[in-house]
């Protein structure tokens, strides 16, 4: 693109493209996009990114439905009888349990289980460089594992080809959600989400409270039918009077085995600080000896293990669903305006820079962790141009990515690989690939703001 060259550009020749770019930019500016909208995993988001769910969540309504129907039947048909014959606390306890179950279930389903964001292009390239010692042209890469020592135990870290990083210990890639999840337990279809580090405690409280609820309803229904049949009628008559009880009995009977079994199993896992994944794979079972287990994560104390798993500090979500995407919109606006900028005079370099400084300031204010960087596949990062203006008074650096200069032309010309944010305006990107640099930290953006005044002075001569 000739716009990348450091020479005078005839604005008339570009009258079409800035226009269309401007329109496109305006359109885009109206709808700033959030990161959840471009999330690469197979997840569904609700409430503008606040709630996350797996894509295959068909069974969650069934779970909710079963719980609500059973509890509803219980409150409608069994409670009136039991309140009159026993105590009013029965529906109260039932109500509390029901609320707790539903709250835990919803919490488990809609919480980010501990998804690890995929590695950026730079990181992936860096890791590739580190493991590719031979630099050979063999197409098939060698199996990538890394062995580390945790508490005198050898743990193998596997490389995730989808997320392009070495998985931290206890992390597993869920194929259903296509995400790496920290402390991956299992993917629960009943809950419609993976169970991992961040929602395990909700999952555990869900199954425990559900066990209590099912047992409670089961017991109450049995009591109800017994009481009815004792009052001079036989059991068949009692059932006929309250058919809903039978429905509840059947549901509770079948679910109680599985729920109680699951609760027991997970209590064991919590007490030994294991995940379902590790238990099934038997990662640590071979070392059963003097110690309780060969599990390097266990504190060898049941109470400590329970506390750590269930009451430990709540880690934050790493995927930043509601953050805004790095402004493609600002990029396009900047590019458009920059193209319009007629660099008639020799000091156009400074002028272009000043204009792009302003644009970059806006960009930096919206800087986020996502960034696309041109040619990531090359072993050495292609030098991108950053425009730096130093104020005459101070030595502060102001970073702005803006102008493409002849120096960086070779970087510019390369068509950039998939820009993950579905940006279709590749032409503009080749003008200013420098826009797609990693966003600098807010520190430097602040210093940019401070110096924002300076460049304007240089800008003015261009007016005539």
């Amino acid at each position, binding site marked *: 693109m000739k716009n990348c060259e450091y020479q005078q550009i005839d604005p008339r020749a570009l009258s079409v493209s800035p226009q269309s770019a401007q329109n496109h930019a305006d359109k885009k500016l109206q709808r700033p996009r959030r990161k959840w909208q471009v999330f690469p995993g197979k997840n569904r988001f609700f409430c503008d990114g606040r709630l996350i769910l797996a894509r295959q969540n068909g069974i969650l309504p069934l779970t909710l439905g079963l719980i609500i129907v059973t509890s509803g039947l219980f409150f409608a048909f069994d409670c009136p009888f039991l309140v009159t014959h026993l105590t009013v606390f029965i529906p109260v306890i039932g109500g509390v349990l029901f609320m707790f179950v539903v709250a835990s279930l919803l919490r488990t389903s809609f919480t980010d289980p501990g998804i690890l964001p995929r590695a950026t292009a730079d990181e992936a390239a860096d890791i590739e460089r580190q493991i590719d010692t031979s630099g050979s042209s063999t197409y098939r890469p060698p199996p990538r594992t890394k062995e580390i020592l945790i508490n005198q135990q050898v743990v193998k870290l596997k490389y995730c080809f989808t997320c392009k990083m070495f998985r931290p210990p206890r992390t597993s890639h869920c194929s259903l959600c296509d995400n790496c999840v920290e402390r991956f337990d299992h993917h629960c279809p009943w809950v419609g989400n993976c169970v991992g580090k961040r929602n395990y405690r909700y999952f555990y409280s869900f199954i425990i409270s559900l066990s209590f609820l099912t047992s409670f309803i089961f017991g109450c229904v049995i009591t109800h039918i017994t009481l009815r049949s004792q009052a001079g009628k036989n059991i068949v008559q009692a059932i006929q009077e309250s058919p809903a009880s039978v429905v509840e009995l059947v549901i509770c009977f079948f679910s109680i085995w599985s729920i109680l079994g699951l609760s027991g199993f997970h209590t064991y896992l919590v007490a030994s600080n294991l995940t379902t994944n590790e238990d099934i794979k038997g990662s640590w079972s071979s070392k059963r000896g003097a110690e309780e287990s060969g599990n390097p*994560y266990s504190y060898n104390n049941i109470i400590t293990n329970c506390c750590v798993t269930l009451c*430990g500090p709540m880690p*934050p979500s790493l995927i930043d669903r509601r953050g805004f995407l790095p402004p493609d919109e600002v990029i396009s606006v900047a590019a458009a305006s920059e193209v319009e900028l007629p660099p008639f005079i020799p000091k156009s370099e*400074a002028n272009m820079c000043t204009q792009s400084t302003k644009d970059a300031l806006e960009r930096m204010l919206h800087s986020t*962790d996502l960034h696309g960087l041109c040619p990531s596949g090359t072993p050495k990062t292609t030098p991108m141009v950053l*425009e730096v203006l130093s104020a005459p008074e101070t030595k502060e650096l102001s*970073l702005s990515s803006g102008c493409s200069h002849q120096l960086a032309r070779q970087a510019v010309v390369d068509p950039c690989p998939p820009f993950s944010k579905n940006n279709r305006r590749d032409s503009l990107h080749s003008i200013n690939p420098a826009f797609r640099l990693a966003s600098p930290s807010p520190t430097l953006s602040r210093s940019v703001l401070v110096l924002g005044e300076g460049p304007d002075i240089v800008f003015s001569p261009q007016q005539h």
Partner: protein
Amino acid sequence: MKPCLLTVSSKVFIQRDYSSGTICKFQTKFPSELESRLDKQQFEETMQTLNNLYAEAEKLGGKSYLEGCLACLTAYTIFLCMETHYEKVLKKIARYIKDQNEKIYAPRGLLLTDPIERGLRVVEITIFEDRTISSGR
């Protein structure tokens, strides 16, 4: 106003150190690419402070258990009004990194990126190269 150019010459990634388990800890080994720019001691001090801050965030103790239990009792609605201990420490870390960048790294043409922006996988250090060109005005 003398414009000068800084190019991103390379990036160094400090990986996680899993020797103590799954807690968030970064390697303190001084990368060779920074040898010309930075003091080894300075770097190690930065990394050690970061590690200490993360350890503080993930510390298991009476306070964190209390927070967990209180949250459970209020059906986790308490987090609508107050932020977790972890989040408070993350803010502290962000301030620390900003401070380090201003004082130590930016003057040397380096830039630390907050690990939380990289999913706590790496500490990314961007190395800038000064390529001042003459303006010829």
